[in-house]
């Protein structure tokens, strides 16, 4: 049985944008300079090899955050449809992500929501309860994971 990995928004968005530009052409998105880690083939390969080792999860709220990035970076009717087709295909057909639902009302510690916002508070809560490793690039979030003995992986590690 593989260990569980909960993937945060930034790693997913960088991967999806990279896949878009590879599959649909560099002109499809103007996001080259937006990606901080997955800029070339090598970090993408390292990232994918890492994903393959785990049972993959995504918090439902993260899907909404992907949409925020899509709205900013993917313009046009055809492009938006293509982006979501590719996203669904990659997340659910290729990488078998499972959505993890967690209502905000389950989180009793308001300071957690105040400090990290609702999305990250939900992710922290899922990672804690389900014993998942959290993959993120948010250093504040990762520091908190460290302090709480939640397993984590820094997305920036795939850069080099």
């Amino acid at each position, binding site marked *: 049985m593989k260990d569980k990995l909960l993937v945060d928004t930034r790693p997913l968005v960088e991967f999806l944008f990279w896949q878009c530009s590879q599959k*649909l052409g560099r002109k499809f998105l103007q996001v080259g300079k937006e990606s901080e880690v997955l800029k070339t*083939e090598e970090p993408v390969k390292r990232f994918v090899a890492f994903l393959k080792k785990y049972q993959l999860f995504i918090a439902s709220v993260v899907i909404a955050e992907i949409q925020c990035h899509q709205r900013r970076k993917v313009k046009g009717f055809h492009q938006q449809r293509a982006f979501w087709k590719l996203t669904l295909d990659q997340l659910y057909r290729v990488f078998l992500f499972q959505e993890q639902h967690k209502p905000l009302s389950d989180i009793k510690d308001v300071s957690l929501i105040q400090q990290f916002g609702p999305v990250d508070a939900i992710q922290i809560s899922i990672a804690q309860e389900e014993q998942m490793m959290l993959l993120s690039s948010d250093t504040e979030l990762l520091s908190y994971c460290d302090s709480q003995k939640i397993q984590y992986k820094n997305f920036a590690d795939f850069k080099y």
Partner: protein
Amino acid sequence: MATSQQKPSSKRMASWVYHIINPILDAMATECHLLQNENLSWQFYNKQTEFISRIEEYIDFQQHHNYRHFLTECPHFAQLFKEHDEVLREAANLAAEILASLTGVKIFTDLVYKKLAEYMQTEAYPGGAVPQAKFHELMVEHLVNGVEELLVESDSEFWAQYSDALKTTARQLYPQLFAKLKEAKQKLLGHAQAIQQKLEGYSYSLCKEYDIPGDPVVASSSHER
């Protein structure tokens, strides 16, 4: 190119540029990128091309009256779009015929599952969410799309190891179908390039004549997470 007696207004022309011409130009750039690599983006499970569509599907449905007017006043483009759609349908039909033909012959399916068994002696099932019983159809999808290398997909290693054998067998079994498919892809690429070239010229002439910018002027939003 507009054929109406009265000169169209700049507002109307701007809406053509922004809502009809620009989206089609962007879509043609995607089509050219895919087809230059002989990729039809065809999918076995719905027998449709994922990223290549009929021209009208590239237009936001809220602009369909604008699109209808554009076609009425620009019959030359209407004809080009019709030809594009016909070639696309022809290519998709050929892809479906290849799928039906290859999945109907034991020699091909046996080869796929023999190689899969060989692979799974040391590795996990490479088909992702595709059920094992449909794995041979996924392989046909790659053949139809002219896939040379898969970089990140779950079956990338399987494809790297066995694609040569699968390609050779498939093309030996149905050489004419694969030749026709290749021809249809090239024809479709030609149509996409022609549409791109003619629309770019028309867009430029409209922008110049009616003094409209190539893209709408919008205030940028700085909010981002």
